[in-house]
């Protein structure tokens, strides 16, 4: 992460910002439901916002990471809302479920990965955000709560609900896999 001294001094090198955070931002956006075709653009938006708002960042109030994820969460949410408003679906091909079974381990893994994406898509926004930040980005819950802007207890209950939904979806996935 960006050195805190640099953050505090309100100066930065754009290349460095992208090198340090671009990968995280890109991944988080995809997992938060930004269609993969839009991820580069939205990633750019987030990083531009980061560069512009860096002087506002207050290291006393939040970790840099949760601040950054907060920006991702809000930008992704805005983007999805705009997409819904335009009723556009610029997504890559989504697999149709239930998918046929396969003996091929690699394809099977990809199938599970694609399925997870669909399951995340089916979660409501708040649950999805908490799940992504905790389970995939592995932020501590306190930072998750800060990033999504909810009380810690709410974040816990969203995580619990999201896990339940994901696990039950994957139980069904496993069932279709085992019963040809």
């Amino acid at each position, binding site marked *: 992460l960006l050195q805190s001294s640099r953050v505090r001094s309100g100066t930065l090198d754009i290349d*460095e910002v992208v090198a340090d955070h671009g*990968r995280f931002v890109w991944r988080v956006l995809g997992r938060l439901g930004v269609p993969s075709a839009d991820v580069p653009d939205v990633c750019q938006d987030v990083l531009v916002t980061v560069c512009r708002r860096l002087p506002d960042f207050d290291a006393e109030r939040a970790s840099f990471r949760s601040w950054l994820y907060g920006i991702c969460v809000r930008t992704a949410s805005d983007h999805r809302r705009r997409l819904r408003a335009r009723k556009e679906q610029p997504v890559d091909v989504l697999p149709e479920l239930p998918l*046929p079974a396969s003996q091929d381990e690699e394809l099977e893994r*990809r199938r599970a990965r694609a399925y997870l994406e669909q399951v995340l898509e089916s979660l409501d926004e708040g649950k999805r955000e908490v799940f992504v930040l905790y389970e995939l980005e*592995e932020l501590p819950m306190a930072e998750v709560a800060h990033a999504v802007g909810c009380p810690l207890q709410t974040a816990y209950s969203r995580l619990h609900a999201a896990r339940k939904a994901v696990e039950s979806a994957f139980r069904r*996935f496993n069932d279709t896999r085992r019963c040809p």
Partner: protein
Amino acid sequence: MKRGSDPPRLRELLRDGSDPLGGALEDMREEGPSAEELRRVTLGVRMALGVPPAGSGGPNGGSGAAGSGAAGSSSAAPLGTAVGALKGSAAGAKLISSFFVPMAAGVLTAGAVLVTVTTVTSRKIAAPPPVDVVPPAVQAPPSPAPLRASPETSSAASAAAVTSDSQHATETPLATPVFRRPGQWNAAAPAPPPSGENQMAPLPGNEATQPPTELALVNEAQEALAARDPARALAQAREHELRFRDGMLAQEREVIAMDALLRLGRRREAESRALRFHAQYPQSAHGRRVDVLLQTSSP
């Protein structure tokens, strides 16, 4: 941070690797942009903030010798100055338009890395750039790259920076690359609905309930390639294309088809297929593989 009270993560609970959810979580965790995609984002961010790309030494900045002279100084300059240097400059305009040619972008950013290393510099982002960044005459040529920092959006974004520091300052219209299914592609071969009439060998254990799957077709095509039988691989890819033109594994099929065509010495067909591939799947994870295929099998 109350780290101690956090529950163990699912990934840790499913660590044995046999659980599909555990595997999917692992896979999703590892995903990320390619270096080239990150470079494009860097360029886009720079353009949106009105900072010329590092290494933009001049109109011929793509020459690879971009790490010196004007490039170094503009990279080290505060935002306002750097933008000023670009403003109204025909050279700058030419230069910017060249960034949107993906090939040029690759070479340029290679230079950019050098410059950044040598000029570890601090730019004050707090200083808002002037609004009129780029002469309006500049037009970004069409590019498969979804980079959004066209001169119009660039100046609009700068305007937003001046007028608002809100979280969502970048409310510029999104030139979203809408996924298209080109009608002309395979117009003569409409994909029939997958049905039981397929003659491909069904997967073991699937005989009764499952129609022949696109997985099976792509698998067989892949196996044919591995068995050095590009003609069969191509035939399988065609079969898949007929049945599942826009299927879940359409991208994989295309990569196999290109590989097979190249092995058959049908380079021109492979190249035109690659062009279509990039146009249809600009963000594909296989994009680089396609490029590498074409590069490594040069005649």
